[in-house]
């Protein structure tokens, strides 16, 4: 979802019709000011190398048949005092046993193919939800974090991009946020990817001074969230849900 401070060239990338468009919503000016950080801290948090962008651009743009090329992120931020929030982050780069090269990319741009998401939900055994509702929910979520696996064959000519994880947060962008639908492909679980998804969402929310971050956890994953700094029923605060009248 393009409601983060940094203007994104990815927003202009043409997506095929089977994906839904990201809503390019600019924050009101006052929220930009709130993201000001001390200048000496900015460099510490800039962790993407310029060369990385070219490799990502060529692999992902090839899939999308777009002709625009990425520019290094340092040129995206022209406003003084704006925190550079990376659109994409390379989490892992490894060779698999069959010689293929795999990169795992974390992204906050929010472009998710609802069909790919449904396949992922099927893999973890979640009930299916109407695709149109899912698409609307993703479009109107404040943050949508995704994990993609990009595999290159040993010859280097075949590339496959696969959605392997997602998490989203709804928010009023000031006080409250709720994290929903944290999902990781079962064959990629147990490697710290779910933790990375939740930590990055939490970080993005806290950086925007959104202090009430809540979620509703299944009993099996309560410990997972406890290890990430979440507390069950803090000070007796519980979530209640509307029950449909009979």
């Amino acid at each position: 979802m393009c409601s983060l401070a940094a203007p994104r060239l990815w927003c202009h990338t043409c997506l095929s019709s089977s994906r839904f468009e990201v809503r390019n919503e600019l924050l009101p000016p006052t929220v930009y000011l709130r993201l000001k950080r001390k200048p000496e801290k900015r460099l510490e948090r800039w962790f993407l190398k310029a060369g990385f962008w070219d490799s990502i651009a060529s692999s992902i743009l090839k899939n999308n048949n777009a002709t625009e090329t990425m520019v290094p992120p340092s040129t995206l931020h022209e406003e003084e005092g704006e925190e550079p929030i990376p659109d994409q982050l390379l989490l892992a780069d490894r060779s698999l046993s069959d010689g293929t090269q795999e990169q795992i990319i974390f992204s906050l741009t929010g472009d998710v193919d609802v069909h790919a998401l449904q396949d992922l939900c099927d893999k973890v055994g979640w009930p299916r939800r109407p695709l149109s509702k899912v698409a609307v929910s993703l479009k109107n979520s404040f943050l949508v974090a995704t994990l993609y696996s990009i595999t290159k064959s040993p010859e280097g000519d075949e590339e496959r991009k696969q959605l392997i994880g997602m998490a989203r947060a709804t928010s009023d962008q000031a006080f409250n946020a709720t994290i929903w639908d944290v999902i990781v492909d079962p064959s990629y679980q147990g490697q710290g990817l779910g933790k990375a998804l939740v930590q990055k969402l939490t970080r993005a929310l806290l950086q925007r001074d959104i202090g009430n971050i809540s979620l509703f956890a299944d009993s099996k994953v309560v410990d997972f969230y406890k290890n990430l700094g979440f507390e069950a029923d803090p000070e007796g605060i519980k979530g209640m849900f509307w029950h449909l009248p009979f």
Partner: protein
Amino acid sequence: MAIHSTFAISYASLSPIEPQFKSKPKTKLNPPPLSISTNRSSVDPLQIQHLFASCGHSCHRFPRTGPDGRVELVELEKLRVALAHSFVVVSVLCKARFLEGEMEKGALGFGFGDLFGDSDQRLVGFGRAVSDCGLTASIHDVVVIPSLQRRGIGQRIVNRILRILTSRGIYDISALCTEKERLFFKACGFGFDSLGSTTMMYTQSPGPTTENDGFMVTTAGRMQLLVPPPTHQLKLWKKE
């Protein structure tokens, strides 16, 4: 009964089975005529700030209280942002002259008549909902001024929010409740999650040791929250 452009509520028509209103002594105020609106432009953030203050309500889940026990005033700019990004905003208004007695008793001590300008409508109740407009919604900040509490106004605010959400096909509606608010939401038709999920909130504060040097901390009410550090690269296991 006058019909306003927003939906007018008159107590005489609302609750014919509640004789206690009719039998109140004449020295007390008659139940004031109220209007309920879902038009977010009819809501003045300054009035909301005043309403929250008179109810001791904070938008922070763990609010900071001053030495006099009062919660700090909600930041106006953040309130504006929150309103702009709330899917539903419900306000209950009342003509000021019906509230003169209450306003004088109000604890803030300075003339709000001047602050609100010519409009004689005062905000006496409020509620809002945040949603992804497709699957889920959450209700926040349902408040009614103390002098008009326990008359069903809060319930009408929640019902109005529910009506709007369900008309858009959103049925997964949650509300975070303190112990005190649970009974209210139960009366509005809310219950604990039938799927047995646990409500969790991020409360990680920086530890006492120096290992937290260089970590960002943000404040939410009285909570100091540790901002998770950025992950540069994960050490993932090689797949076999």
